[in-house]
């Protein structure tokens, strides 16, 4: 469970102080599928970095499963990321020269106790994204959509509580984007908490709940009533059927 309270983040360069987040509070329960929306420069990346324990708030509180993240040191944050958070990035961030298998097992290098059945875990994670037959492929032998699915498998391998996806479809074509979104949907159905950061309304519509940021503040926090199958709604307006 995630709980943020009066979160503020200010970047100071020299004498200039730039507030990016100006008092944000919300709560995300386990198993929720939330999209954080906003145009660029609204602080959504900063918020994601803080939620992902990559950065700390200037003031305010961030509780992740009752742990006050703001009080943790660098090592503890690393442990937390390793254990509880799976990242999916817009640019995939795969190791170019390594196989899908190795990419997927990367987070296991940093777990406290190295599991014995690493291969099995990797296979399971790759199966979850439908890439069982691509185990030994390297990123340059995979399509963009497949690469992003490898990245999702990597996020899944440690069985984290939260999957944090930053514009996961941003670098993909429409079809691959839809594939990726359907994987998130499946993961959500399996009980994973998913936080999606996007500027794209159509992508955000896949979630259950949308939090809209503007100018460092939340302007909207609403649940989506599902009337249509949002799988058909991805992409720009003209392509809507």
């Amino acid at each position: 469970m995630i709980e943020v309270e009066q979160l503020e983040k200010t970047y100071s360069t020299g004498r200039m102080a730039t507030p990016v987040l100006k008092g944000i509070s919300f709560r995300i329960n386990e198993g929720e599928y939330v999209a954080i929306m906003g145009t660029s420069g609204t602080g959504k990346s900063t918020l994601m970095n803080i939620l992902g324990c990559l950065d700390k708030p200037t003031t305010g509180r961030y509780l992740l499963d009752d742990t006050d993240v703001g009080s943790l040191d660098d090592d503890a944050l690393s442990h937390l990321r390793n254990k509880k958070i799976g990242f999916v990035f817009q640019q995939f961030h795969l190791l170019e020269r390594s196989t899908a298998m190795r990419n997927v097992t990367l987070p296991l290098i940093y777990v406290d106790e190295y599991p014995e059945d690493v291969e099995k875990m990797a296979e399971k994670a790759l199966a979850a994204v439908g890439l069982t037959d691509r185990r030994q492929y390297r990123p340059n032998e995979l399509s963009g959509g497949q690469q992003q699915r490898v990245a999702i498998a990597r996020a899944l391998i440690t069985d984290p509580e939260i999957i944090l996806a930053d514009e996961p479809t941003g670098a993909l074509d429409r079809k691959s984007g839809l594939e990726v979104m359907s994987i998130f949907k499946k993961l959500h159905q399996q009980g994973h908490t998913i936080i999606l950061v996007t500027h794209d309304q159509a992508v955000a519509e896949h979630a259950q709940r949308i939090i809209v940021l503007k100018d460092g503040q939340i302007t909207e926090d609403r649940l989506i009533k599902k009337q249509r199958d949002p799988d058909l709604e991805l992409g720009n307006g003209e392509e809507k059927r």
Partner: protein
Amino acid sequence: MKFSRNMALSYEILATHKLRTFLSMLGIIVGVGAVVLIVAAGQGASKRILDRISDMGTNLVIVNAGQTRIVAGRQRQMAMVTTLVPDDAKAILTNCPSVRLAAPAINKKLSIKFESENANTNVVGMTPDGFPIRNIEVISGRVFDTEENRGRRRVAILGPTVVKNLFGTDDPIGQNIRIGRVPFDVIGVTQSKGTDANGADQDDLIIVPLATAMRRLFNVTYIERLYLQAINADALYQAEKEIRSILRERHRLRGKPDDFTIQNQVTLLKSERDTSQSMTLLVGGAAGISLLVGGVGILAVMLISVRERTGEIGLRRAVGALRRDIRNQFLMEAAILSCSGGILGVLSGVAGALILSHLGYWETIISWPSVWIGFFFSTSMGIIFGIYPALQAARLAPIEALRAE
């Protein structure tokens, strides 16, 4: 350990950048290779010198007339001295229990002639005992005997170089040559001994009976040198002491400095060994400096690598790598680089040494301490020069690093 979990990945990353990996190792390879090769060559040279010194004779003690001093690496006689005479050899043999054989000798460069062939060579007058003392073997013909010495017979034994110069491939035995103006019969040819410790040709000589040389060739009553053989290796210093006291007494040197110089094989060995060892150390040290340069090569490549892999570092941090995991990973990679560089360097050094020996240019002896020192030095070099890039990598903030790509 996280170390070993990451090994395969580190290896993969290095293996995919083959050229860069190789270039970064090159300095180390060359450095270690050079150290191993140079030390092997130095040890080989040293052994060759020592072999030659033992070739000079068995349990050898040499008495030179006059004070000699080492000048520019060679022994020079400081002043002409006429006090050493053949009877000194006899007296030493009778009075020194530690001396088994004694052979007085004298030598001079003279012109020699056979038919129309002329040459200048070192003519040695020596008693027959000089052959066993100096390990000179006669491979064809025969050695002159005491009787021929006493009778001042004009017989000569030639070194292989002289044979080649005067006779080419013809058999010299029984031929008549002229030393100066005096005709001599050739009765034997010595076994080749190659060059001596100073690089002089030991085969360019003619040996004649001492009495013949003193009377018929040089017209002198004194000798220049005594070759003596101690009863065994342990008696060398004792023999030296006995010889000194006899000679001082015979030369009436009470209160005056020696008018002769005594050397034995052990002191010769020691001084030669010292020279060649300091040489090896010097050149090996110079090669060692190239190892330092090799370390700088690793530093440069690791810095480039950290910059280029910023995104990877960010990703690793995001999935849970601690700062020290990143630091260790880069240290590990530097260590792998320098360690493999060290191994390749040792292999190339050893290969180079073997090839050099095999081709016959230079005898080499691979010295295991140099292999270990080269290897450990290179590995620690890599780790030391890997520290700075590794710390830089570890300092990167995850979000900055992730943004870099």
